[in-house]
């Protein structure tokens, strides 16, 4: 119960005044602590964006090179080899040249992208099919989607599908790069021709 305290004529601080100031300092400390937590989470999100931007740069770079005549035909990302996607070949479980799988493996092991980490889990950067704001485990993950144009007259110009290992890359692809924020929701990084 709050009872107004009598007014001392000196204007000096009472015990409850001092207690209130201490309480106010604690509250400010709490806000600062929570603010700094938010800031650190925000920094992780920024790092996630930098990961996405690194992938965008790689796609832009590789997309420009791989269609050139002098690009090595035996490179896993080369568009020159037609993929053999017969059921028997797929069953063997070996990497199929001319598909996204070997190209991705090359990017993850031999390019500058190999050192990228998911700042939220501190593990190697992981690829997921899509971001989901209800799934916090996806924070910091990367989503690579192929944008396929829809027939003329369709209400949406593109249909997006996650890039799978067996997707052929013997043609020019329109790729969308997305990363998942701290809540698992998507942050669009960019679109590039690969």
């Amino acid at each position, binding site marked *: 119960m*709050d009872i107004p305290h009598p007014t001392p004529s000196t204007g000096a601080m009472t015990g409850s*005044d001092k207690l209130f100031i201490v*309480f106010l300092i604690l509250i400010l400390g709490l*806000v*600062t602590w929570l*603010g700094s*937590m938010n800031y650190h989470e925000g920094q992780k999100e920024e790092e996630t964006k930098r990961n996405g931007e690194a992938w965008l740069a790689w796609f832009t770079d590789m997309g420009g090179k791989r269609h050139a005549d002098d690009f090595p035909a035996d490179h896993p990302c080369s568009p020159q080899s037609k993929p053999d996607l017969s059921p028997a070949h797929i069953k063997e479980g070996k990497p199929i040249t001319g598909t996204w799988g070997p190209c991705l493996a090359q990017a993850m092991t031999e390019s500058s992208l190999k050192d990228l980490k998911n700042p939220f889990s501190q593990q190697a950067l992981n690829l997921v099919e899509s971001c989901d704001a209800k799934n916090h485990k996806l924070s910091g993950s990367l989503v690579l989607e192929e944008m396929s144009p829809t027939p003329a007259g369709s209400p949406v110009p593109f249909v997006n599908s996650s890039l799978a290992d067996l997707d052929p890359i013997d043609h020019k692809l329109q790729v969308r790069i997305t990363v998942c924020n701290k809540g698992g929701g998507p942050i669009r990084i960019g679109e590039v021709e690969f």
Partner: protein
Amino acid sequence: MSKQYIKDIDVNELLGHQKANIAHDLPRRKWLYSWLLDPNIPGNFQTDVDKWIGILIVLNLFSLVFEHVPAVYEPNQGLFHAFDVFSVAVFTIEYLTRWYLAPEDEEFKGKSSPRVAFMLSPFAIIDFLAVAPFYFQAFIPIDLRMLRFLRLLRILKLFRIIIPAIHEFRELNQGRTFRQKMHALVFPSDFGGKLHQIFDVFIAIWVLLSVASVVLESIQSLDYILHLQFIILDAIAVGVFTVELFLRIYSCVEDPQYQDRVAPRLGYVKSGSAIIDILAVTPFFLEVFLHHLFDLRFLRVFRLARLLKLTRYNDATEILIKVVVREWPVMSASAFIMMLLVVMTASLGYLFEHDAQPDKFENIPQSIYWAVITLASVGYGDISPVTPVGRFMTIILALLGIGIFAIPAALLSSAFSDQLVKERDTLKANLFSMLKDGELDENEIILLRNEAKRLHLTVEELNQLIDQIIKEHDVNTREIPLVKVAEQPELAVEHYKQLLGEIRRLGLLTDHHRFDEAAQQGYRLAPQDLTIWKQIQGKS
């Protein structure tokens, strides 16, 4: 306490529109000081100079913050530089003006060398430091970081506004408790002074900043580059609003409104303004603690509730709430009829259209959307009746809807204007009771000023109101006992003028020759009195 006679009230002065009374023939320096910097002359430009310099300082602070965001700074380097040059030019002109006018300033007037005394004063040193690095960099290479840090010193210029306000606040609150002082700082009272106004402006700036950041955050491209800045801004805003909230809760017990309650703080926490304050900070704490459990993005929208904090500084909201509460019985009846009409329309729509359009009028709840859109005359057209009976029914119901849906709007608008008239009548009644003695004391003048501002009365309206009261007051003055009239010289003069007027009127109406005869007959009027009569009539 000084009193003002009703006929002497200057409405312009009362509403703060007064013109400075500065003689034209003053020496040039004195004249300039009086117009620009003298804090003791009401109506001069001193407040405006302080206000605009204050705004420029705050803008400088923002510019400095944004210079650290490469995505904003790099494409707009030219603009940032131009703004810096402009700021330095303004601050330099201000510094030189203050230096030139220092001999007129009360603070330095008595010194042997007023301008040197000015240059060595703390405020002048701050002013100098605010501009000096800009000029030094032309001669000495200064590190960009150091230069930015030195520019941060410009914030210190705000002390020129804050320190006098703190001194005034201290004087007003001498001998008062800490809690009373906090109350004076955060709640409007006679003890708040300018510091309370600065506090209000500070909170209002943070409200606008944080709401702007919530709105801008929703623009993906902006959030992408300024995400961390938005986080910092939100944390600072929450810090400011939390301190404000607890200061209000702690000191509310000093408010007469809550003093008589059993649990005054609980009473305050349950008030509308406190609930808004709590809503303004809650999303921040909930989001940090609970974001692992739920998707709490919807809470971010609640940060926009901070805008409601501004209603504290706007009386129109209070009037609107009063109106809604007063008209609630009629409005609820109208809402009931609206609801009835919506359900009936939806049911009829379902009855006549379900067979023809089963996908659009699938059931009655789904038809409610169509009913509301039709009755409210919105008419999106995504669902429309196709059967002849359905169309006929729609014509009737749409016409009915125009009338029924317009009732609450009409009710509100007429009640709102009624309330304004009522409040003006109350002001008139108050003014009339204040003027029973023909005078206004200082408190009554403050009350009148505040009420006139609250009701947004113009100078003409207030003049009209005062004229009306003077007329009514003149009629009633006759009823004031002569002893009371005699106590107040201004009223006594007015009364004397009134009596003289009566005598002159009598002189105009009567036959002077017969009047003189009658006066002299039987010594009815003493010779001195007759002489005075003739003097008044202008015949002596």
